[in-house]
């Protein structure tokens, strides 16, 4: 199996590294989240126009940012896996998808919770919310496609194509929905662009966003370790890992 280990040596060395890094990022995420929540609830003042309901944005906006950011990162990893034929990058892409989908769901639900007291409806067909919904469909499509293909190499490559096609489509979809929306009704209250946005609000949002980012890295590292074990289960390094554990 010399050829195999030579070409794909990276998982063997990355596995223990990821194992050491993951707890670090979990701790970072938790600490930042505590600081961020403190600022969100005890430092940031009441919003002049939206009252206290605006405090939802401290999770809504970071979640929405992460959902899009993770999709881009996922598409890049998947694309690297397709072009360079490196298995680790494809595994990274697959490890990112569930967390990205989770943040998309959070962004959608918190968006609805924010919309009800602010707009008076749970759902508004504005460009952001609609794009977020479509992003969720794209995540689900990616995960279903890679899950439906038994052959790992094919799953990686097919997933990469879908992720990249989706990535090209997201801005097109966003702008077409935005255009469609302005034709049907004027854009309503904006979440982040209100003039009353205090500096502390922005700070709270940024810290929460970084916390979400650290959390994503931590979970992805944990998940990619499982993927590595699963996929390379017959290789020597996994056997070694198993020996040590038992």
């Amino acid at each position, binding site marked *: 199996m010399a050829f195999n280990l030579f070409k794909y040596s990276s998982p063997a060395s990355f596995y223990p590294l990821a194992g050491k890094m993951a707890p670090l990022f979990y701790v970072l995420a938790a600490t930042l989240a505590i600081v961020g929540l403190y600022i969100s609830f005890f*430092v940031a003042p009441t919003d002049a126009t939206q009252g206290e309901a605006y405090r939802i944005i401290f999770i809504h906006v970071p979640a929405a940012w992460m959902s899009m950011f993770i999709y881009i990162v996922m598409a890049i990893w998947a694309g690297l896996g397709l072009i360079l034929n490196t298995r680790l990058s494809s595994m990274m892409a697959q490890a990112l998808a569930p967390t990205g989908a989770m943040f998309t769901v959070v962004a959608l639900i918190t968006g609805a919770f*924010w919309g009800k007291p602010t707009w008076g409806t749970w759902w508004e067909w504005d460009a952001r919310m609609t794009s977020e919904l479509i992003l969720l469909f794209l995540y689900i499509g990616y995960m279903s496609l890679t899950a439906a293909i038994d052959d790992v190499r094919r799953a990686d490559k097919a997933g990469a194509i879908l992720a990249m096609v989706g990535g090209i489509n997201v801005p097109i979809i966003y702008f077409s929905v935005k255009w469609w929306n302005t034709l049907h009704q004027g854009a309503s209250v904006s979440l982040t662009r209100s003039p009353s946005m205090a500096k502390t609000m922005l700070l709270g949002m940024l810290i929460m966003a970084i916390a979400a980012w650290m959390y994503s890295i931590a979970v992805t590292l944990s998940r990619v370790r499982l993927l590595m074990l699963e996929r390379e289960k017959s290789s020597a390094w*996994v056997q070694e890992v198993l020996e040590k554990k038992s």
Partner: protein
Amino acid sequence: MNWGSLSNFIDMGGRGFYVWGSYLITLVCIVFELVLLSRQKSALWQRLTQIMKLNKQG
């Protein structure tokens, strides 16, 4: 920001349901993801060690 009392804090200016509801759901989502991940992990470990034992026997 000084809330004065706990009930004021919980009430969130009358928007308590929405604010706490969304934070609660976020927490549920994160916990769900972590639990799912740890269950996947233990299932995978169990499976792999079992296979290893079988291989050693046979």
